[in-house]
């Protein structure tokens, strides 16, 4: 079952090649420093909007008879099952990556609003990005005591 889900996830992958936008303050510099392998994907877009697509389909279904209401319920169930399959498939793939040392998070990144002084992007990722914010590595010990005075 899990192999099937992984294959389904793979079928969704590699559909687009998202471009990483440049830093508005310095157009020549990349906005982020990729830390893992580039992995073009539309998995998260599919995951998020498949429910909405099913909702739109239901909008045009009649609900007068019992059979018609039954079809609406089945479509509703499909709309909730598809994201679940994408999630389980992606998670399964990610678990394999984690155990082999990879950090793939199915990241997608496109410019969304860039004609205003403040820019917004269409950015998805399935986990928080690995730390890109520091020259120093993360604290080696998870037991490290909280530092109330720590400044950033």
């Amino acid at each position: 079952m899990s192999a099937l889900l992984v294959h389904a996830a793979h079928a969704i992958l590699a559909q687009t090649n998202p471009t990483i936008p440049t830093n508005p303050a310095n157009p020549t510099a990349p906005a982020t420093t990729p830390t893992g392998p580039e992995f073009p994907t539309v998995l998260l877009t599919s995951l998020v909007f498949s429910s909405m697509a099913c909702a739109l389909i239901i909008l045009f279904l009649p609900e007068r008879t019992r059979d018609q209401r039954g079809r609406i319920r089945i479509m509703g169930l499909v709309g909730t099952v598809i994201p679940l399959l994408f999630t389980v498939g992606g998670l399964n793939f990610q678990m394999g990556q984690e155990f082999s040392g990879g950090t793939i998070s199915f990241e997608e990144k496109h410019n969304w609003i860039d004609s205003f002084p403040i820019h917004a992007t269409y950015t998805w990722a399935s986990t928080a990005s690995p730390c890109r914010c520091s020259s120093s590595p993360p604290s080696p010990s998870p037991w490290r005591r909280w530092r109330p005075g720590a400044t950033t």
Partner: protein
Amino acid sequence: MAALAAWRNDVRPKLFFILLLVLETGVNGTLCALDYMLFSVFWAMELVPTFLMIAIWGGTMRMRAAQRYLVYGLVSLALLLASAFLLAFKSGQNSFDFDLTNTVNLVKAISFTGFWLAFAAFAIRLPVVPLHTWMIDAVTESSPPVAFLVSSVLTKLGAYGMIRIALGAFPTGAGRFGFVLAVLAIIGTFWGFLGAVGTSDLRRVIAYSTLGQMSVVLLAVAVGQAIALNGAVLLMMAHGLGTGMLVLLSGTIEDRARTRDIRRLGGLAWQAPRLAALWIAGGFTAIGVPLFAGFAAELMLFTGSFAAHRWATLLVMIGMLLNTGVLLWTLQRVFFGPAREAFARVRDATTLELFYLVPLAGVALLLGVFPGRLLPIINNGVLSIVSRINGG
């Protein structure tokens, strides 16, 4: 699960499923977004479907519960947008992108202001005392599938936002006010206990127990350490499964017994042993019995928090023990004791109910036995936030 739980609903099923799917889009979008504007758009997308689902399919006081949810939700959205704009303008990056704004060293005043704005936005959704009243009403007055979504999904989004944004984007503020958050966590656990003891409404007991459990997550946010935050994320999943089962089962019990007043219930295990077994599984997951998901989560969370806030951790543990006692007492009052004549014809769990409740129990057991399978993925996200807190 909510779709299956609403399978028998024959009142406007088309509208219900459309709203359910729009809500699901909002939830999934919020969890995947890596841009404050995108996050806010999907955060806002959850408001209207939930409001309508409470208002249309709820109980007698549904309009009050729905309006309260909407008002609190709009305030939360306004606070979230304020913190996002503050961060975008003051970070100097002119962007809402997490990757850009979360790398900037903010001056203290901005970091503190941003932290409190973001914290308040997510404290409403978590919920944190005294901003919890919408959740109690929404869980009590909604239909079981909607109450399931509110208690198991929407409250977790508050915790997610608190960890991801309040901690991740404003680590200085989070570090400075950790003690205040710990005090709020203590108040929340005891408030949850007192609220649960003081009511005889089965659904309200579960709502107050949710308040207590979510306060434990707040303790992890107060501590801001990797092991505690890993435990908090796992606890959110465990609580979603456990409390979700309890909410759905409370709906089933109300449907069968025509009441959810605990004083009038009792001895149901004789007539409905499968419902009793499922309730026990849900309750054990929620209170953190070994082999269920809640145990590993609470163990990690308290182990991590004890080093930083010893007294707060001890007090929250006492509060959790009291909450556990209330849930066990509720189990005893609803399912055990002498069989009652009034419930002699109560049906046990149907095939459909088993179809959506048994998988929840199975996943709770699986996460309890093998939490290590999921922890590397959780830890990957948590470490990036912890490194910011530690001044990285």
